[in-house]
């Protein structure tokens, strides 16, 4: 099988241009972030931050400075509120399970939205087996949560609510402030968690205005390295650890801190925030150029998620009818355009993306969906190239579809 992958890679030789847009699923780390990280592998701060030797103190100083920087970008009061851990999946697991362990006996209802990432949905499914009741807030055709429904369902038996600030697949910017108000005015003790992995560095998210209890941040989603992320835990909120071992500087996550990755995460945050307005304006312009170019240029296309100011500045998600998504990702890959799809064909089960079905897309619409994210590094030339590649790819696949279904 490995042999055939080598052949697949070879088939890409000689592509005119390469444009990576699969930032949902992984990302290249910018050179400046890599350069910042490198000395921390073996030149400095390679010690254990809780031990009494120079490299250890250097590591301690580095981790604290990084936490301080990230705390400042989200408007956290104290750097103690930033808990580093290996990523979004781990942070979401800790948020849900850590809260449930702490609040045992105080209720058994957990409310999440229908379109949460799988690291929320699957943990909740697991909890359902041990007696918790999980209710999912329905969303409308653009992915916005139903606040009236939330108002009705949140009760004294609810221990926590979790809603992502920005949906990772369709870019919907949720009314988190309103949701938080509804939950807290019902009962102040209910824990409110939000995954801000797709909001951080892309929308103006500030804890002083949206004082949630817990928030998940991922590093690779803002072009930092994979394998690192953080869970913000407000200083007066207590949750339990879900793993045990040697505790160091990170009270909620045992094990030796990964200083180089923390430095990369912090540097990536700095780059996203230092020219925040300029960065998001650039992304938004390229996003709209891509969306408009596709919707106007190709028939049988549907935008998934809202448009304009209610959509994350980086997110493009479009369904191509009579065109299966996995085939489209391969066809585009062979032209140097790297994207992903919500098609069932890229998954084990027959079901397509739960986000797309939740907003009412029929299966055949979801199967033909393509997800792309633009960054501050993309250029107009990149987008022009993509806008040339996609119509040709769709056209070829629709020829294979031919006359089926009339």
């Amino acid at each position, binding site marked *: *099988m490995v042999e055939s992958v080598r*052949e697949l890679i070879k*088939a890409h030789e000689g592509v005119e241009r390469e444009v990576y847009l699969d930032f949902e699923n992984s990302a290249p780390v910018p050179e400046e972030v890599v350069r910042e990280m490198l000395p921390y592998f073996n030149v400095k701060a390679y010690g254990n931050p809780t031990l009494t030797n120079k490299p250890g103190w250097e590591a301690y100083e580095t981790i604290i400075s990084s936490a301080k920087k990230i705390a400042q970008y989200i408007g956290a009061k104290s750097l103690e509120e930033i808990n580093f851990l290996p990523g979004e999946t781990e942070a979401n697991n800790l948020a849900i399970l850590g809260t449930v362990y702490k609040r045992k006996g105080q209720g058994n209802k957990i409310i999440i939205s229908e379109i949460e990432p799988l690291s929320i949905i699957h943990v909740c499914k697991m909890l359902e087996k041990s007696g918790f009741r999980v209710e999912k807030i329905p969303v409308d055709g653009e992915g916005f949560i139903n606040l009236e429904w939330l108002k009705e369902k949140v009760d004294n038996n609810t221990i926590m609510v979790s809603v992502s600030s920005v949906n990772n697949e369709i870019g919907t910017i949720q009314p988190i402030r309103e949701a938080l108000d509804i939950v807290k005015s019902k009962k102040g003790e209910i824990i409110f968690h939000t995954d801000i992995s797709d909001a951080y560095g892309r929308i103006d998210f500030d804890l002083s205005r949206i004082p949630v209890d817990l928030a998940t941040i991922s590093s690779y989603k803002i072009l930092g390295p994979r394998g690192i992320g953080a869970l913000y835990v407000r200083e007066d909120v207590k949750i339990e650890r879900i793993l045990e071992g040697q505790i160091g500087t990170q009270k909620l996550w045992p094990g030796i801190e990964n200083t180089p990755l923390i430095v990369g995460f912090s540097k990536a945050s700095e780059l996203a925030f230092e020219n925040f307005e300029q960065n998001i304006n650039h992304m938004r312009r390229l996003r709209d150029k891509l969306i408009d170019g596709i919707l106007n240029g190709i028939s049988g296309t549907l935008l998934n998620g809202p448009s304009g100011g209610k959509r994350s500045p980086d997110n493009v998600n479009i369904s191509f009818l009579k065109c299966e998504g996995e*085939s489209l990702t391969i066809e585009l890959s*062979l032209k140097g355009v790297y994207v992903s799809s919500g098609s*069932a*064909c890229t998954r084990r089960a027959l079901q397509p993306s739960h986000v797309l079905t939740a907003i*009412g897309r029929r299966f*055949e619409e979801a199967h033909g969906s393509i997800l792309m994210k633009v960054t501050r590094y993309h250029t107009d030339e990149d987008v022009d190239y993509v806008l040339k590649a996609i119509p040709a790819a769709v056209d070829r696949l629709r020829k294979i579809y031919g006359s*089926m279904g009339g």
Partner: protein
Amino acid sequence: MSRSPLPYNPKILELFRNPKNLGRMDDATVSAVAGNPSCGDMITFYLKIDDESEAIVKASFESYGCAANIATSSILTEMVKGKKLYDAWQTSWKTVAKEVGGLPTVKFHCGILAVGALRRAIRQYYKIRGHTPEWLPNEPTFEEKQALEEEELAKMLSKRMIEFEGEG
């Protein structure tokens, strides 16, 4: 909803890029569909059959599906061309998978669907002619059943979705 790696082999890639016998056949004797768009997989098989010799003169296909779906459909049209219907019927999904150089486990169903479409077309042919040869099994074969199951599963999932939406 987990994902698995899909290391497609060069043969699949080649057939995906340059499928053989592609497109609707206007003078087809018979055609059959397997799968439907809501499965994410649909194949239409067209056969031109010589009534006298009961041999496939030509075969073509249309496909909505992944690279494995396109490749297996394409190779099957080549495999059965010129064959007697009896011999074409014997083609199993495993032979198809072998011909394309092997399929990733999660893509076995593509080969099954292609064979399912072919066998449906052959059944249809005999149904139109109003006679059933002795070798044609009365009961649907594994590939035909699997194709049906996939269609029913997709139908069931869609129905559940509609019911769920209806609740709100």
